[in-house]
């Protein structure tokens, strides 16, 4: 087991955003978390990355507790994130943003190879290489955020709604890319509003509702589930 | 309609009772000359800070030049009251001071208010310094020595009256179409403009209004202290007013009152600490900001309406 979250609770002041959530992610899997707006998905990812401290519960990564570690330590251990709302670095060029992604890496050759990999995956970024990232279109920024996270060469990649705002043709591509990332050996924890797509590529999935996990199963099981169909797939 | 009348009457009552209270305390000797001085200085600071709060807290424009407009009000009214040393002169001086200050604010506001954040802060600071340097070099302002023997036409009741008037002016402005337009500029200029709000116009209006009230504060200061000099209106004076605004809570007029009173009392007490005075003051300042970064009251506002609603809710229950 690569990541194990148990009884995690997180608060924003008096708001209990996550109330005792447990789930796990095995090495090499794509695990998908789905749930309505405000269910607490983003909060969970922030807590795993060390941007927030849990009120209670444990996060165990590679056998070690990380819930009290600093974020830079967690990144160094191999967890990287494509945050909601992209959070690319405005004022820095596309290339510089990618460089920043490799901030902690020391293997120069590896980094070079990875630029090539990212540019190949997202040709637009290559075209816009020297453009100020702030002026990219919404979709372009999303690609840059993914590229930057990949530059860290993570073992576990956390993705928060990567398909938001993307053109249909690209949504398919994004999910292809996620699968490709998995094939390369990176484990993915995926949050999506586009539940049908997410579940169709996920090995397993969890359904979150107002801070609690209410359902779990393999991607296929959940896709077929009536409740999920009704609430999240518009069926 | 009746409800509104009730709220307004309550406000009026609060003001009148406040006045009578101070008057009585003065008569029985609880408020002596020193306490009165303290009250007046607090009052003047309230006037200055509510005006600055309108500019910084409500329109979101970071102005560091309040002392400049205060200076214009102070000098204009001092010159006029020296020539006409009666209450008529005082009124004339106030009106002229406000008008001149508003005019200058209009002239500098239209070009500079396009600047953002700290760039605006430094530009307004520059404007205030230019005003101060001009006062320092003009004949009519008597150069660095400044003006003295200014007739003391402002006593505490005049200051009290103007505290009430400026507060009413600013609070009523804020809670109207104009005030909302001004606040939309603070929240998001692009969105405001896309909703049909002429942001330049509203920024300038808030700036001019704030400058006019600064002139009131300056005029009262000149009249009460009876002497003014260019150095009274330097960057530090602007900063002192800024401190009141931020410490009270940006965007809270009640907070401005509280901070002005707290700092006024602090000033009163710290006089006795000699050289340590400013050391203690700065420590207090740092501690308050570290522990209450959004100011003493945040954006909380005292509201008669809310109290009535609460009372009513209790009565109903």
């Amino acid at each position, binding site marked *: 087991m690569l990541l194990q979250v148990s009884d995690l609770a997180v608060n924003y002041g008096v708001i209990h955003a996550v109330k005792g959530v447990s789930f796990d992610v095995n090495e090499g899997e794509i695990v998908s978390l789905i749930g309505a707006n405000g269910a607490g998905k983003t909060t969970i990812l922030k807590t795993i990355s060390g941007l927030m401290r849990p009120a209670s519960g444990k996060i165990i990564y590679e056998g070690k507790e990380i819930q009290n570690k600093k974020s830079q330590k967690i990144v160094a251990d191999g967890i990287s994130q494509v945050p909601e709302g992209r*959070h*690319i*670095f405005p004022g820095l060029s596309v290339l510089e943003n990618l460089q920043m992604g490799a901030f902690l890496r020391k293997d120069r050759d590896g980094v070079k190879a990875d630029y090539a990999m990212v540019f190949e995956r997202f040709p637009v970024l290559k075209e816009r290489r020297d453009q100020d990232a702030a002026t990219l279109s919404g979709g372009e920024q999303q690609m840059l955020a993914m590229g930057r996270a990949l530059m860290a060469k993570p073992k576990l990649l956390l993705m928060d709604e990567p398909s938001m705002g993307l053109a249909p043709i690209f949504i398919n591509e994004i999910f292809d890319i996620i699968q490709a990332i998995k094939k390369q050996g990176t484990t993915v924890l995926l949050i999506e509003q586009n539940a049908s797509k997410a579940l169709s590529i996920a090995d397993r999935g969890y359904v979150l509702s107002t801070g609690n996990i209410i359902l779990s199963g393999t991607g296929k099981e959940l896709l077929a589930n009536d409740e999920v169909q009704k609430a999240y797939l518009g069926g | 309609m009746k409800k509104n009348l009730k709220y307004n009457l309550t406000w009026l009552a609060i003001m009148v009772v406040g006045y009578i209270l101070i008057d009585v305390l003065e008569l029985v000797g609880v408020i002596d000359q020193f306490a009165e001085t303290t009250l007046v200085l607090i009052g003047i600071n309230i006037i200055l800070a509510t005006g600055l709060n309108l500019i910084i807290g409500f329109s979101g424009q970071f102005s560091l030049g309040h002392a400049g407009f205060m200076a214009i009000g102070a000098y204009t009214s001092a010159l006029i009251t020296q020539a006409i040393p009666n209450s008529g002169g005082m009124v004339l001086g106030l009106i002229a001071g406000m008008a001149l200050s508003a005019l200058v604010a209009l002239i500098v506001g239209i070009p500079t208010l396009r600047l953002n954040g700290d760039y605006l802060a430094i530009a307004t600071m520059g*404007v205030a310094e230019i005003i101060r340097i001009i006062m320092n070099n003009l004949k009519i302002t008597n150069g660095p020595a400044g003006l003295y023997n200014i007739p003391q036409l402002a006593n505490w009741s005049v200051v009290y009256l103007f505290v009430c008037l400026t507060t009413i002016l600013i609070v009523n402005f804020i809670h109207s179409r104009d005030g909302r337009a001004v606040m939309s500029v603070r929240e998001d200029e692009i969105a405001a403009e896309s909703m049909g709000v002429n942001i330049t116009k509203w920024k300038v209006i808030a700036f001019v209004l704030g400058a006019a009230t600064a002139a009131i504060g300056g005029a009262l200061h000149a009249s009460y202290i009876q002497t003014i000099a260019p150095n009274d209106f330097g960057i530090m004076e602007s900063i002192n007013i800024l401190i009141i605004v931020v410490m009270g809570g940006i965007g809270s007029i009640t907070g401005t009152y509280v901070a002005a009173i707290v700092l006024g009392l602090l000033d009163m007490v710290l006089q006795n600490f000699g050289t340590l005075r400013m050391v203690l003051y700065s420590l207090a300042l740092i501690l308050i900001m570290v522990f209450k970064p959004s100011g003493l009251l945040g954006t909380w506002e005292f509201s008669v309406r809310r109290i009535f609603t609460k009372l009513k809710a209790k009565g109903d229950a």
Partner: protein
Amino acid sequence: MHTVLQQLVNGLSLGSIYALLALGYTMVYGIIKLINFAHGDIYMLGAFWGYYVINQWHFSFWPALISAMVFCALAGVIIEYLAYRPLRNSPRIAALITAIGVSFLLENGMSYLFSSNVRSFPQVIAVKQYHLGSVTISNIQLLILVVSIVLMILLQLIIKETKMGKAMRAVSVDADAAQLIGINIDRTISFTFALGSALAGAAGVLIGLYYNSIDPLMGMTPGIKAFVAAVLGGIGLIPGAALGGFVIGLIETAVQALGFSAFKDAVVYAVLILILLVRPAGILGKNVKEKV
């Protein structure tokens, strides 16, 4: 003609002092968008440190300079830790007020401990005047000029080329995202303060030596001038700070040389405002319009 040249030299050497101070100002601003009002007072601390170690411990120039840099770096880091770090997620204006509080504290604390008297800075380097044709320049003026230029280049290299420099830029634009790629924000900010304050410390010793007069309030006016210089050049930009400093030095000199010395500061501010109206983000600043 020779007075013009001499005035140019005067302007440049005055400008190099503003530039030296503006560098540290702009660095701190660049990373946490804080107008560090206390920067000028750190410079004062540096001057007093130099005064003390030269008089009491008989340090010579370089040890005094370097120890002042170290001392101020420490002071900067401690101040950041105690006074600014708790406000990191608060409105910027709250941090500004705290910075003003720190500035008051340093000024008045020093004045309380050591009185507000002006004192003369020990002359560890004998002043030498060089006469190049009709132009006179002193060894200390040259020293300041060279030090500011070297420091400016060094800083630019740090920011552009080193990892820490990159981290500084990342933190300055999006602290959350910086954390997500493994940047230690606290350390980066501490480093920035250390660097900025060390610069102020160096300036304190150099300027103390140059003018030979120090007092607890000495940081106030230059602090504000440095702020103006930083803004004029484009705040947050190292070359901007240097440029702004030199421009102000030259303007002041020109105004005085033309006989309007009473309006020296007024002209500086007027030029500042005019430049901002044409270039709202300073001379070198990029006016990035927000993408909607």
